């Protein structure tokens, strides 16, 4: 059961992830990405990371990708015309990717803990949101502040960069 769920989610996640790259229409790419993220969120849930999974949907599928879609539509990007295929670039890129996949398989294959089954969590421990909250505010308060500054900078930046007329 667990395995089946994993396979479904993982397959579709990777499948739609690949579609992002393969599809010519930017909107299709973006929608594939959304689907990929949704399945990824599903995988998070199979890993008992509900909070992360939901945040994934909320932030990525709900906000980031809408922004993408919005921009694609705003710029009125049509399907990519078949530009001259650069064989060299594709071969080079393909070689890099193949090498990367090989490396990952190699690394995972040689990792001692890779065969380990998922440990069972103790029951009745309550919400993982609360625990993440505790860790966040007790241990990682400072990075949280830094992220706050980061968001401020991003906001200022976006206003500066996208406002029609600066005032």
């Amino acid at each position, binding site marked *: 059961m667990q395995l089946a769920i994993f396979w479904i989610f993982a397959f579709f996640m990777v499948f739609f992830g690949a579609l992002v790259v393969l599809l010519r229409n930017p909107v299709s790419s973006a929608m594939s990405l959304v689907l990929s993220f949704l399945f990824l969120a599903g995988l998070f849930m199979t890993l008992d990371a509900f909070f992360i999974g939901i945040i994934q949907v909320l932030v990525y599928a709900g906000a980031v990708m809408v922004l993408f879609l919005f921009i694609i539509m705003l710029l009125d990007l049509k399907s990519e015309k078949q530009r001259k295929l650069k064989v060299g670039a594709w071969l080079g890129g393909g070689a890099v990717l193949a090498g990367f996949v090989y*490396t*990952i398989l*190699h*690394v995972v294959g*040689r*990792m*001692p*803990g890779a065969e380990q089954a998922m440990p069972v969590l103790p029951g009745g421990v309550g919400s993982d949101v609360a625990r993440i909250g505790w860790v966040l505010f*007790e*241990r*990682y*308060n*400072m*990075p949280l502040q*830094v*992220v706050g*500054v*980061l968001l*401020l*900078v*991003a906001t*200022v*930046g976006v206003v*500066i*960069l996208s*406002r*029609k*007329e*600066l*005032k």
Partner: protein
Amino acid sequence: MNPILLETILVCVGFLLLLAEAFAGGVRKSVFGYGAMVGVFGVFVLTFWIDAAAMNSEAAYSVYYSADDLAVFFKRFVLLATFCVLLMAVEFAPVLQKYLPSSAGGAGLGEFYCLPLFACAGMMWLVSATDFIMIFVSLELVTVSFYVMVAYMRKNALSLEAGVKYLILGALSTGVLVYGIAWIFGILGTTNLVGISQAVAVLPPEKSVGVLFGLGLVLISLGFKVAAVPFQFWVPDVYQGAPTPVTAYLSVASKAVGFVVLMRVMDAFFVAPYYGDRLLSTVAFLAGMTMLLGNLAAIPQTNFKRLLAYSSVAHAGYLLMALASVASGGAGYAIAFYLVVYLIMTMLAFAVTIVVSKSLGGDNISDFNGLSKRNPWLALAMAIGVLSLAGLPFTAGFFGKFFVFVSALDAGLYWLVGIGAFSVACGFYYYLKVLRAMYWLPLSIGESENTRCSISLPLGALLVVLVVLTLALGVFPSPVFALMP
């Protein structure tokens, strides 16, 4: 004083300036630039009062925030760099203004003065970070600030292109970094550098493949940040396109903190020779390629900022060489000193570029033609700057190279030193091109010797200080060592 207050104060200054900028209508925008400078300088002064003991060792942040000597030194470094950049930014304002879509005078400048403050705070956090989470977060703060600053001149296609390129490459390196950290965390079970070094020491060898994989990815990402070949290809475009003060900032401060992170990360893995050896050889290899390519590619450049970009790659190569020779013990000093002198001379070069490009409207090397006839002193300052970059004795740059090569030779990296010698000769070649333009070549047709570049008082003062520092440190470098960790 608790060291963590430094960044807090800086961020608060930035925040207040932003608010003031938003609500104060008629104030001249340069006021905010000077305000930011005052803030930076104030924090710089405060660094001499901090007391690492004031940090609560029980507090959670003590795990991932360290106020050791290295951190404090580079905090000061970053603050000074920010100060110079802000000064240059105020000077650069008219050029910037030209490329901003604004009706009212000075619109959008206030933010330009505030963003360096946040970037600076990010870098200060970064040099203190001893945990991958903190490293990641503050690195991103810096990077995002730079995205904005690089693309700031948004009516200028060059700046935007630079912004996009920096964005793509920056985000790529972020992705790689995160994936690498994930692997390191996965095998070692911690993101804390101290914890990592403890875990690495007792790690059974059959588990090391994953760590090595992650470490490699982290190295690649940091290679992007410090512009090491083959991850340097974004550098020339971004440097050329970005507003000049931002280029200076990017090439000095961002690179410096990249090296600090690299040092800290490498430090954590040195406990295990398995990683130490591989790391060192990798870094040495990178250093060789970086020096070679940076210098060779700089030779045919005709744009000064682009030239400085490649030269900055080359300097990254020298720094990497020092990093690869940590076995010699003095490498840390060499890196720190090199970065300090690099700060001074690069700022000098960029400050002059700003003056020239503001008056003559371009930053090609040909715009420097005949500068010695126009502004002899400006030309002299530039000459001293580029000669220092080339590493001529009696300039600070020479000491920088000297220490680097001493440590490299000490560590026995002879082949690397050989490449280094070749690179230095190349370096002479292209730096002399600037000298040639300023001293040999006549003015461009239709220009008279009387059209001088005007230099504002603050920038002139900055130039004088930088020249004096370049020369003084070229003769008497010990004050810097006194400040060093």
